[in-house]
């Protein structure tokens, strides 16, 4: 028997989305650093900020899933 909640499935879907997003950001940052290694520190900062915005969406989903379970 399957138990659990739809909220958990939603959290999983959000994780897929955030994974794709952060993967794209990380990949592009790698490209940028490979082209211009001297700009690595600037690219890393910008990458972390962009990743934080994408990550926030997945974390909203985690919060919603926690509320859905509780």
């Amino acid at each position, binding site marked *: 028997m399957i138990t659990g909640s739809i909220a958990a499935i939603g959290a999983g879907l959000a994780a897929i989305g955030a994974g794709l997003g952060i993967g794209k950001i990380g990949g592009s940052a790698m490209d940028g650093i490979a082209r211009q290694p001297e700009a690595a520190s600037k690219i890393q900062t910008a990458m972390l900020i962009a990743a934080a915005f994408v990550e926030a969406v997945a974390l909203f989903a985690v*919060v919603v899933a*926690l509320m859905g379970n509780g």
Partner: protein
Amino acid sequence: MDCSHVFDFKVKRLIVVFTLLLAFFSVTSPAFSQVDTVEAAANAHAEPEGKEKFDIGKFALHHIADSHSWHVIGDFYIQLPIILYTDNGLVNFSSGAFLYNDDAKVVVEEGGQRFVKFHEKIYYASETANAHGQYVELDEKHHATNARPLDLSVTKNVVTLLISIVILLVVFLSVAKGYKTNYGKSPKGIQAWMEPIIIFVRDDIAKPNLGHKYERFMPYLLTVFFFIWFNNMLGQIPFLPGGANLTGNIAVTMILAIATFLLTIFNGNKYYWKHIFAPDVPKLMWIVMIPVEIVGIFTKPIALMIRLFANITAGHILMLSLICLIFVFNSLYIAPISIAFAVFIGAIELLVAFIQAFIFTILSALFIGMAIEEHH
């Protein structure tokens, strides 16, 4: 972000050793002391049909929540004071009066009123016990419906907050003293540890986002950065003085986000407000633009609040769940795998502790920077 100048080789080695030590303790202590007590408690009121199944979700949520007592080791708890603002004024007593009971089965009489503790919340007790011996009224979802006094207790999170204030004061007063005594000389001792990180906050967070007016906001940015970082690290330690989940408490992150929000709106110049209330677009577009921009003022701090809260909470739940795998499979052979994963995640959590402090500070600087930016 170039942190290479922050950590030289010796520091790196120290950090590795410290990480392994932390990981070791985080693995041994919650797994073998706390789980036992929880399991014993679960067995104590198990249904007669058989042993209650180990519930990961309940266990993890119990451990990240705030508490009125502080588990130290084995059966030893520090009972923290309970301070209540009731209908008849202030009432205070030790949480030990509840005799470790968290199911509203023990009634404490104080100041002519009767209280019970139910899931770490204090309620006014009912006159008579229900069918399970609990002095609360429960609805169909097992939530208590009794009235509650205003709870001003010194809980685990409050104590952690005080501990972190003491640590921050000790560290930064000695750093400040170092700059007076070693004036013109190279930094010494704890000052030498902190200076690269303070310079990192100044050069990589404040200057790029705030421009030439960065000095006004340095005290706030440094305070927020070190407060969040120190508390994230305290949260990684599973025993005293760590163990509480302070930055994973939404009330704490809300206050931090409100501080950023207030700084943003009070420092906003005319260009910032013009951008919101009279953007440079055709007048017809204002119907759409202005509401979106107004909502934007509030979503920024709300996102800050939830990002920090959810990151730290998710980290704690992850660590606890990995340890709990041993008890879910009920086998010793799963332990090496679970411990290896927990060590790995623990190392990542140390990185996350730094990155989340960095992200919160840099986004605060970014939002304030947007508000004080001069028009070109």
